[in-house]
């Protein structure tokens, strides 16, 4: 394991540092989630609790909205399965990087930390995914998510819109920092990123596709684009890395 020289504590702290910009982005997004949650009948503690244990943006937004419509628990579960189905793909991508014999415990711990953002930084990190890293990031980011939700519920529009606007870019900046360095090194990744931008933009405006939820559009485009690139530009076998780049700290 390439990270053998680092102690668990060092890896945890690295994850924690990388989780801070994620947390900033979460805070801004959670704030608007909180404003919606209040409209759907949740109090600040319930919002905090829900965000702390669910930590799923689109999923929670849908879940909160559904609550206001007197849904059944079965419908809730079905909707969560559909809207969070991309987490299954992310789980496969992370487990693919873990050697045979990795304890189920380790696999479950890494999987439990999956969010779009934590997955992104974990897959970009060279070597085998480790729960030290993912939990470091989770512990930096999720409290901000929960706090943002609770503050959105209690304080509504007290934070100036300009600040929320600026903070909301932090998440995307982080995504970009994850995808661009490998795109620079690998032309196929660069092509995949460019095609993804273009088709994602198109899908927002196309009939039928634009009516899908954002989560479902994401998973549909991911399956299509990644499949096409896998066929056109297959990888050599047994490349352990996801093409990731070392981030400086």
């Amino acid at each position: 394991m390439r990270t053998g020289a680092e102690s668990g504590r060092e890896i945890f702290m690295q994850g924690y540092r990388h989780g801070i910009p994620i947390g900033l982005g979460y805070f801004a997004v959670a704030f608007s989630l909180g404003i919606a949650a209040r409209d759907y009948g949740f109090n600040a503690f319930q919002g905090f609790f829900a965000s702390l244990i669910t930590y799923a943006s689109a999923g929670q937004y849908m879940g909160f909205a559904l609550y206001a419509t007197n849904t059944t628990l079965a419908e809730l579960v079905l909707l969560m399965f559909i809207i969070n189905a991309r987490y299954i793909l992310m789980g496969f991508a992370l487990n693919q990087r873990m050697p045979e014999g990795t304890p189920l415990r380790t696999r479950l711990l890494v999987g439990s930390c999956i969010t779009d953002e934590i997955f992104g930084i974990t897959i970009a990190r060279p070597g085998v995914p480790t729960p030290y890293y993912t939990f470091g990031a989770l512990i930096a980011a999720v409290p901000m998510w929960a706090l943002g939700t609770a503050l959105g519920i209690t304080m509504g529009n007290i934070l100036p819109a300009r600040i929320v606007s600026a903070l909301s870019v932090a998440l995307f900046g982080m995504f970009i920092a994850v995808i661009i360095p490998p795109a620079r090194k690998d032309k196929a990744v660069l092509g995949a990123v460019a095609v993804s931008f273009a088709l994602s933009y198109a899908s927002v405006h196309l009939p039928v596709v634009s009516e899908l939820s954002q989560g479902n559009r994401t998973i549909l485009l991911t399956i299509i684009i990644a499949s096409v690139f896998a066929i056109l530009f297959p990888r050599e076998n047994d490349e352990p890395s996801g093409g990731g780049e070392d981030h400086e700290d």
Partner: protein
Amino acid sequence: MKINAYLYIFVMAFATWLMRVAASLIMKKPVKNRFFQSFLYYVPYVTLAVMTFPAIVEATQSPLAGAAALIVCIAAAWFGQGLFTVAVLGCVTVLILELFL
């Protein structure tokens, strides 16, 4: 009758968690299939790219500020800046531009 809010929240969290660990419960070793390997190699970049654009332009008050942040972040990441720097540069770009836009 309204479902108890805490029961509802717990079920929401549990269903979400099941999606997260589904692959962990199934996979015992890396898949050898070349297509599947290649597919998984591209998944993260495609997913994150799809989620970034055009969402970044829609997240800011002024779409122009979001577009500028996109360009600044891509340039910073291209020239080797790390996660935190890129994220902060994006925020600062929006903060400054929205003073004028």
